[in-house]
């Protein structure tokens, strides 16, 4: 991997030509993880993960089931705090600030680092209320008009507004799976995060809904730092600029997506890419 004074070199073009080709860019590093370990009770799930995640690009974590990629993702916004018996070690810094600092406000951190889950999980409320919930609890809107604007613009950014503009007061659970997932993305965007974590966001969706979400991720990259965990190597190749391969709780290899897929250094990565393990 090419490290040039804290900048990470991005690939010349994305693997999939239907997406926007990516110009040669150098992005500052947003997230730094050093020697991150996670224990669930006596079982160690992560063995010293160190990685840098660049600003306004998509970084994907791939690897077979149980390799720790989702666990690591959940460390980044401290969602592992809600799991009984989970213990996190090492340091993760967002813009140089340690997110495991006891002084740090977890609630505020999670507003800065949004998350989209594997299964679409809209609240059993209206579409409007789903998106408005985050801004409400964080006091982001000064008036009803303000809130309306946040909701509409978030739905627009998530590419859902045109489909739901006439039924904002209907329950979010009534939407299709793909729409629900975009609603969850809109809900995450509404809080105004800098980083969006996506935990296998398409694994419960059909191919068409998946394609729509992938396109959306590519657009969101303009404004957000995105980390996506995915089962599908094709998806990693299509949407991400950098890829990290996890295996058995270890980070085996990480680098520019194209390099990982065409020219992996590590034997295990090679085997996984070729379909020999996982």
């Amino acid at each position, binding site marked *: 991997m090419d490290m040039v004074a804290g900048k990470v070199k991005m690939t010349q073009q994305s693997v999939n030509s239907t997406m926007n080709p990516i110009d040669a860019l150098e992005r500052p590093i947003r997230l730094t993880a050093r020697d991150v370990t996670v224990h669930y009770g006596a079982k160690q799930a992560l063995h010293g993960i160190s990685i840098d995640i660049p600003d306004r690009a998509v970084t994907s974590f791939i690897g077979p089931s149980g390799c720790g990629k989702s666990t690591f993702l959940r460390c980044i916004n401290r969602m592992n705090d809600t799991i009984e018996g989970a213990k996190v070690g090492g340091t993760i810094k967002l813009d140089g600030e340690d997110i495991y600092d006891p002084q740090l406000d977890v609630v505020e951190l*999670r507003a800065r680092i949004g998350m989209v*889950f594997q299964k679409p999980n809209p609240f059993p409320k209206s579409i409007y209320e789903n998106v408005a919930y985050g801004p409400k609890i964080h006091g982001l809107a000064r008036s009803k008009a303000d809130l309306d604007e946040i909701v509409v613009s978030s739905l627009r950014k998530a590419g859902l507004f045109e489909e739901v503009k006439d039924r904002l007061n209907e329950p979010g659970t009534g939407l299709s799976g793909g729409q629900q997932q975009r609603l969850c993305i809109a809900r*995450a965007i509404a*809080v105004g995060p800098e980083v969006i974590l996506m935990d296998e966001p398409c694994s419960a969706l059909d191919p068409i809904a998946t394609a729509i979400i992938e396109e959306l991720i590519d657009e969101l990259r303009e404004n957000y730092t995105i980390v996506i965990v995915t089962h599908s190597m094709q998806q990693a190749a299509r949407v991400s600029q950098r890829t990290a391969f996890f295996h058995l709780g270890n980070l085996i290899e990480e680098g520019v997506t194209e390099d990982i897929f065409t020219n992996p250094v590590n034997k295990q990565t090679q085997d996984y890419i070729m379909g020999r393990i996982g």
Partner: protein
Amino acid sequence: MNSLIIAGMLLVLLGLAYQSGWSRSRGLATTTGVKVHSRPQYHGSYVAIWAMLPALAILALWGWFGDGITANYITGQIPADVLSGLDPVALNATIARIRSLASGYGVAGDVQPFEQAAADALRSFQFITFVVVTVLAAVAGIAALLYARSQITARLRARNAVERVVNVVLIACSAVAILTTVGIVASLLTEAIHFFSFVSPIDFFFGTVWNPSFSSTDTGAHGQYGLLPLLAGTLMITVIAMLVAVPVGLMAAIYLSQYAHPRLRAVAKPVIEVLAGIPTIVFGFFALVTVGPFLRDFGNLIGLDIKATSALTAGVVMGIMIIPFVSSLSDDILNQVPRSLRDGAYGLGATKSETIRNVLLPAALPGIVGAFLLAVSRAVGETMIVVLAAGNSPVLRGNPFEPVATITVSIVNQLTGDSDFAGPQSLVAFALGLTLFVITLCLNIFALYIVRRFREQYE
């Protein structure tokens, strides 16, 4: 003793039949080498079921008609001149005396010679019939056993046949529960209709005075049976109970399901549920001896006139009684809310209490309401606490610090003591019971409907 012998015989038959079917099936598999449709256990069960059916049918027939046949036989033993002097009631009494003599329990008064003779005859008759019935059942069972055994071939679908029998047994068991309900409702209904021939339904459902005057000195009048004071008492106590149980139970559930450490939860939850296992009579005297006087003294302190036995006392203690009911059900329902919803809220940066208030509770609300309604129907039907602690004063008034009476207590009052079921004084209990039944039935149906709707949302 006789039943024991029969039960023993049936068990032996069962074992024999199973064993013979099983061994025959084994023989089939080893000698022929053909693929056998069912495994030996099924062939064994198949023969066992076949052997049981005729035996049980004969015993059931005897159980059904045996009593009548015996009574006829006894009547036949009574000398004709005595018989002609007996009316049906006296005849039944005589038959009962002869039966007691025959079984050796002895009877009151002097034993007439003809009674002793009839009893002796009855004893031998009973022995003979018993032997005949037992032998018949055994022979029929063995015949059926042999027949079923001869049926066993490699292609016999014993497995499917056993499956059908299991199906029938299961249906029979659920039918018992359903038929019991139907029977109880039917008897409530007929007796209540009987009651309404004395007192008009309008006077009952809309009457404001409850005074069932047991004294027969009133000329013609049966007393007054206005339901409203009792209904008001029931509702008042239920409302007070829910005011105690709902907040405490719900918050306990939230604490247990969301905040408590698993180890604490593992201890606290069973302890709370033990509260549900305390007999209601214990709650009753707890109310009478402790809570009532405490509330009265407390009322004195703050200048309120609270009677020791009052709607408040009964309601508070009943509320304590149903706390575990509310908390346990709510706890289960809160745990059913998918974890992904909680994660979604945390992922947006909601705090724990925000997540509970804005996401968890709304999602669980229908289920929690269902739990409350089930608790209400328990409170409405609760008797013992009210008997002891509510003061039994069936007067229509709105003050919870005064004694009241409820529907359940009035049923107890009307039925305890010497009551024949001819007058409205006793029959009113059925009308009250029916009213209570309809109230709790409606609440239960409504609650189940709501709980089901909640389930559909997530599964």
